[in-house]
């Protein structure tokens, strides 16, 4: 799709260059505003974010390039049933509103920097902390990988093929690492604020396109039903589809709500009021973002037939390039959407990378490898690790490009494992009887079942589309076993009363 040079000339490249320079400038400002060389200041911005920054950083982090590309592609492939995406994004915030009040209170009282600080404090298990960090980092690394793939598509599309896929990835990664290394969370959140505003602009333009071109949604639906021969995409699914629908809801609501970079953002809130206002705003954002991505993919069904999975992940770009020559005004709108797309991708990638760095530094390096390291030493090692990791992931992106891996497959790989952490928060904050041993056992068994089911899918035991039995995702099967073990363990082998609890032991 991006082989040809489109009619936008070099204007979008100039736009992109200006945007990237602004991002580096903000990173520099973040460095100037740093108050101390501490982990809290670097990884949580000193817990100082007001409503404006906190809301926009939550928004820009939650809605990524995947929302604009992957969600639209999935909607194109599945049709009406992907309306599930609106509910699962709302439910993510609902879940946070359930466990958030307790976790926020604890984070303020005890000064948590990473989610694993809570995990160790609550359960006192070194192995549980390590396994949770591994699972979270695994999920986030996949998340970054998916964003890097989206970066390549976005820059290639924006430049009309003048900047190739891998050059685009490397260019954005260098800029992102620069501002992140300069100012940590403060720079990331401030750039997120700009990126969030661009994202809102981008989605508003998509809304305009949906409403105005070729008769809008109504005409598209008529075409899907009549001409394109794809009425199945407008019809109520069968029982397999219904099971998959519920399974998707469970996987996403439990999985996305424990994203460590989202949890760290509410550790960054200046006050409870700030956090409440930001979360209440966030719960309505799926109607501006996910719903529009779903609708755009839905309309695309009427315009494009027989796109492969890989091509359909770029259907947003195809739709934009389709209308680019309508007028000068439309050209500017399309450029804005492309820049917003780049912004969305970068804002999610930098947040995930910063979160991995904080967990490796605070939960692994400073505890098990170099307990005597100074704060400055910890910060340096975290940055170094981040650079090495991203170099590895850029290499993986190249591999992904060669194999034309679908963005959605990558998402599923991360969530299926990350979701196994959810009992740690959902049960751990409410049920005193839950012990570290039970949770550890539950997480291990849940992850093991998920792995076995994935291997089963690879060996062809169940159909390639669902990758698990009965259309219920592997992660949900694992999660069911995980919660069962936690409940049984909590009932039969409860956590000792506080006075009996033992202080931290050796691993």
């Amino acid at each position: 799709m991006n082989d040809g040079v489109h009619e936008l000339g070099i204007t979008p490249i100039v736009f992109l260059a200006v945007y990237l320079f602004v991002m580096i400038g903000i990173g520099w400002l973040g460095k100037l505003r740093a108050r101390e060389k501490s982990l809290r200041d670097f990884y949580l911005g000193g817990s100082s974010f007001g409503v404006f920054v906190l809301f926009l950083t939550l928004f820009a982090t939650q809605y990524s390039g995947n929302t604009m590309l992957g969600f639209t592609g999935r909607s194109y492939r599945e049709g009406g049933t992907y309306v599930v995406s609106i509910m699962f994004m709302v439910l993510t915030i609902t879940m946070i509103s359930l466990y958030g009040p307790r976790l926020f209170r604890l984070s303020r009282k005890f000064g948590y920097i990473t989610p694993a600080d809570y995990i160790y404090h609550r359960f006192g298990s070194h192995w549980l902390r390590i396994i949770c960090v591994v699972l979270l980092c695994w999920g986030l690394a996949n998340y970054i990988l998916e964003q890097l793939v989206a970066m390549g598509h976005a820059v290639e599309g924006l430049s009309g093929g003048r900047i190739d896929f891998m050059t685009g990835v490397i260019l954005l990664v260098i800029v992102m690492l620069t501002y992140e290394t300069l100012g940590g969370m403060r720079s990331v959140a401030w750039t997120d604020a700009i990126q969030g505003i661009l994202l809102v602009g981008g989605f508003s333009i998509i809304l305009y396109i949906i409403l105005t071109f070729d008769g809008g949604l109504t005409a598209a639906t008529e075409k899907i039903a009549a001409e394109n021969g794809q009425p199945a995409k407008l019809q109520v699914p069968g029982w397999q589809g219904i099971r998959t629908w519920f399974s998707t809801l469970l996987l996403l609501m439990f999985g996305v709500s424990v994203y460590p970079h989202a949890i760290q953002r509410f550790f960054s809130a200046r006050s409870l009021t700030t956090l409440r206002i930001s979360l209440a705003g966030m719960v309505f954002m799926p109607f501006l973002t996910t719903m529009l991505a779903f609708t755009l993919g839905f309309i695309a069904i009427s315009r494009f037939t027989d796109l492969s999975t890989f091509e359909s992940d770029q259907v947003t770009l195809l739709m934009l390039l389709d209308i680019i020559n309508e007028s000068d005004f439309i050209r500017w709108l399309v450029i804005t959407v492309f820049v917003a797309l780049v912004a969305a991708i970068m804002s999610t990638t930098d947040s995930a990378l910063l979160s991995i760095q904080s967990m490796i530094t605070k939960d692994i390096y400073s505890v098990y490898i170099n307990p005597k390291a100074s704060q400055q030493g910890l910060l340096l090692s975290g940055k170094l690790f981040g650079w090495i990791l991203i170099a590895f992931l850029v290499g993986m992106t190249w591999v992904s490009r060669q194999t034309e891996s679908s963005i959605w497959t990558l998402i599923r790989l991360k969530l299926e494992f990350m979701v196994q952490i959810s009992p740690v928060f959902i049960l751990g904050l409410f049920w005193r009887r839950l012990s570290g041993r039970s949770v550890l056992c539950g997480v291990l068994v849940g992850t093991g079942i998920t792995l076995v089911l994935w291997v089963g899918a690879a060996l062809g035991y169940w159909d390639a589309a669902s990758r698990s039995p009965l259309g219920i995702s592997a992660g949900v099967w694992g999660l069911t076993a995980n919660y069962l073990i936690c409940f049984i363990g909590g009932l039969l082998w409860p956590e000792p009363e506080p006075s009996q609890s033992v202080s931290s032991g050796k691993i």
Partner: protein
Amino acid sequence: MNDREENESPFPEYKGERDMDAFWKAITVKQEPSKQKWFLPVLIVLVVCSVPWYRSEGEMGYVLLGFPVWIWTSIVCSLGVAILTAIGIFGFWKDDDPG
């Protein structure tokens, strides 16, 4: 941008201590959405209604403003959950800011 002006961080930093008495005392929130008896049942009803299990397979039904009604039903239920969550956050999440 909205940053605090003080030079020193007012927050402690967690360093691996485990005083569980303090932990369980600190966890008590004045009021929270999960403790409202109506919150979870309403949430579950809305989520279950958002999935078209009660309709016949292959049914498309009426098309309203471009989407079949079963799609609109799911969107309206999602809006219901969003409103419910906002009510929970604003009306039933009350606490002293421990920071």
